[in-house]
């Protein structure tokens, strides 16, 4: 890589509000870029085939599987990872708090996907039905909870959001 033998692309990315100008090898996945180069290890590797959702991030407001997304294709994209949900002072978003309070995760490995998919759901549909929740989270496998507490956590987040609790940090 030092010899620049690899094809690279110069890309501007905004990740969790911070601008990065990076020369990225063409083959590099967004997952590897986040984890290996930017130390954003909250985004997880589970399958590398886009089936489990542990690597989910938000790209320009839409969830995406970072393991099957080439980082070099994301010029000018605005990316949010799980780390971007917490406010700078460490305050959890209402959604994170609801997941924690309701045991919406156990081992936490699938949490990036569950949280970011719920963020997108609630932005487009503030009052989702059970079926809407199931559809929004259909791309994300959880092996611990049996999903019951995840549904409960999402509903709790809706309730606190309606009551005017602080929203997720940008």
């Amino acid at each position, binding site marked *: 890589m030092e010899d620049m033998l690899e094809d690279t692309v110069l890309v501007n990315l905004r990740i969790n509000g911070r601008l990065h100008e990076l020369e990225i090898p063409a*083959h590099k996945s967004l997952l590897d870029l986040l*984890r*290996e180069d930017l130390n*954003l*290890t*909250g*985004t*997880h*590797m*589970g*399958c*590398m*085939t886009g*089936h*489990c959702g*542990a690597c989910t991030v938000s790209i320009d407001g839409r969830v995406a599987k970072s393991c099957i997304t080439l980082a070099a294709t994301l010029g000018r994209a605005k990316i949010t*990872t*799980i*780390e971007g*949900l*917490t406010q700078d002072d460490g305050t*959890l978003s209402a959604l*994170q708090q609801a*997941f*924690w*309070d*309701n*045991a919406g*995760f*156990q*081992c*936490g*490995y*699938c*949490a*990036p996907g569950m*949280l970011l998919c719920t963020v997108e759901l609630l932005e487009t549909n503030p009052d989702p039905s059970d*079926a809407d*929740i*199931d*559809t929004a*989270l*259909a791309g*994300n*496998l*959880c*092996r*611990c*909870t*049996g*999903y*019951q*507490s*995840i*549904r409960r956590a999402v509903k709790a987040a809706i309730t606190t959001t309606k009551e005017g609790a602080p929203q997720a940090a940008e």
Partner: protein
Amino acid sequence: MGDQKPETEGYVGQSVRTIEGRAPIMGKATYTNDINFPGQLHAHILRSPHAAANIKSIDTSGAEKVAGVVRVVTGAQAAEYIDPIPHYIDPAVFGGRSATIRCLALDHVWCFGQPVAVVVAEDKRTARYAVSRIVVDYEVTTPVIDAEDALKDDSPMVVPGWDANMIMQIPFGGGDVAKAFSSADRVVKTDVKVHRFSTQPIETRTYNAVYEAGTESLTLYGTVQNPHPLRHVLSKILRMPENKIRVHAPVIGGAFGMKMHGHPEEGLVCFLSKLIGQPVQWVEDREECLLIGAREQVHSVELAVTKDGMILGLRDHYLANTGAPSSCPGWGMAMLTGLTMPGPYSVQNLDVQLSAVVTNKPGWNASRGYGKEVTALALELSVDNAARELGLDPVDMRIKNFIKKDQFPYDSPTGLIYDSGDYEGVMRKAMDIIGYEDWKKQQEEAREEGRYIGIGVGFELTPEGGTLPGTLVAGYDSSTVRVAPDGSVRILTGVTTPGSGNPTGIAQIVADELGVRLDTIEVVQGDTTTCPYGFGNSSGRSTIVGGGSAAKAAIEVREKIIKVAAALMEVGESSVTMKDGIIVSGDKTIGLEEVCYACYTRAYDVGSVIDPPLEATAMFKPGLVRHTPNEKGQINPYPSYSNAAYVAISEVDVNTGEVKLLKFSVAHDCGNVINPILVEGQACGAIMFGIGAAMAENITFDENGRQLTKNFMDYVMPRIGDVPPITLAHHDSPNPVNYKGLKGAGEAGVGGSAAAVVNSVNNALSPFGVMMTETPLTAPRVWSAIQEAKKAQPQRKVA
């Protein structure tokens, strides 16, 4: 929870959120894969593409030429430096055949995916590429894939030198089986075929080994359920003393048995780091993770029954296809299936025999339920089949045969001693909370509309806290409780967590016993250098023995604090109370920090009444276990017997065979509950495993033994829409000897819930006469069963 109020006003019994949960929800938890050391190297493994072959030669020169490759190692080269992997549970301890297992194959491979060579490179992509440049000359031999074929006289041998493809045959049981069968009104035979499926945590296995030449010591960071026992195994493989090895398990992303050790990659990365002198990491990919299977068993259950449904005797000679030999503890699951027969049923005439067969499929590892889930599947499908044959209600037949609640402690015919239970009460509660009778009405109404709703029940007896003599599967564990001069508390325990929440449960227990606030407690687990010797996470044991030992240690420390507090306040010890970190005697109050500081700093005056530091280590060893064989040579490896009843409501589309689950209930007896929301999470997670097992999860092979299941499109696990609403209730019969009456809550439920699903589908399709006893119930299989039943019974009128 349930019918019971929490015992005290303290933390035990409360649904507090996990103390360890903040980091994961922020994306800040450190899993093994997140660790990256300076000079980090990456390993990639070349695996056998054949199920059975002799290795004639390996040419690694192509890989060595790849820029960025640091080292390429074959099995023959590795064998110069490292020894075979000791068995987690050696079959030889139980009189079985024991194979020599190496980290890399030497001259013969016995399964698809077996490690053959390894490349270490500066980055993972280079390592992966270089592996493709290794050329192996294989002489492919005929594999044995099927367990029945493996037992034929002309079968090739999976393990060179063995005279049979058998780890062992073990009989379980007693009584007068011949008499029971001859005096029965009917003998109902049910062939239950359980397929190969796996636990598949979302975090795959990862190991990162760091060798320090200066101290000749090694640290393995890894996805490890049992750090101390693995340290022992590594010491044998690496020819190093245990005191030079540290095993550290960071946050684990689910385990379910998969991360119990014996895997070749554990010793391999340690050896490579030692060889090269740099940190070496290996990350399992999903295809590799799917190689690890379990539970493929063929049962042939015969129930000798009276016409009113009493079970007089049970016979089941079953085959377990355990795949190729492995040092992981998976094969032992097959043994536990037999030992747990006849589950919750009061049947003393029992003739059960295991044949644990080796084949050229990849080996097993431990999987949630550890064989006891297959007991539940085999029994519960058989009982439903018998009830149908006899024209009885399946619930009535179960209740008729359950061990009664006044019969505990109960001696099972296999030598187990069941501690406590109210199986009928558990079953009735599961039915009540789902509205069983109401669903029966709905079923009738639906049938009139041409819709097929099914109601199925399943019961699972899940012995917990298992301990096997002569192995590092121990029944006891230890914890240290330390209180610092500032009053903050640190618990170090030998048990570990796969993410299930037991650190919080243990902290709740200590908060109450010590009398401090929960948020002042920190729990440290999973590190052989800082934690007391312990046996980690398995068999629903962590809160039983981790909590029990931490409670004992906390009580010792509390006594010291109270003594010094009394001295400071100049009052009698007996008048002093401590709760939430506030120490009170009459109208005098003193803070915990002031007392703790005095304990450390005033050892020659008020603190002289105790020996500092404020620290104690205690061990908890549950009772009821019997390792000295009885007159029949039987042992009881379990101190507690959790149990649960499951009810599944499903609807089958008879035109497509598609099954949709509508509702689920569980009534659970795990003893007293420390944290209801966490116990509920365990129960619901296990039910999801059972649903996946019954419906879709399946690992398949071609006729040459090459694995076809490679990713999550092949291995279909339940997604959120596949799991119906679950209603849970507790019906607790506390364990008479364990701390707080705990029975274990993490493992139970896979088999009972899977059986409930299968029974519900059979119930839905009873108008067609369908009785499926082979899992999984995929739509094509269900559809085929309907077509076959229609052909077999053309005279039967169906809507």
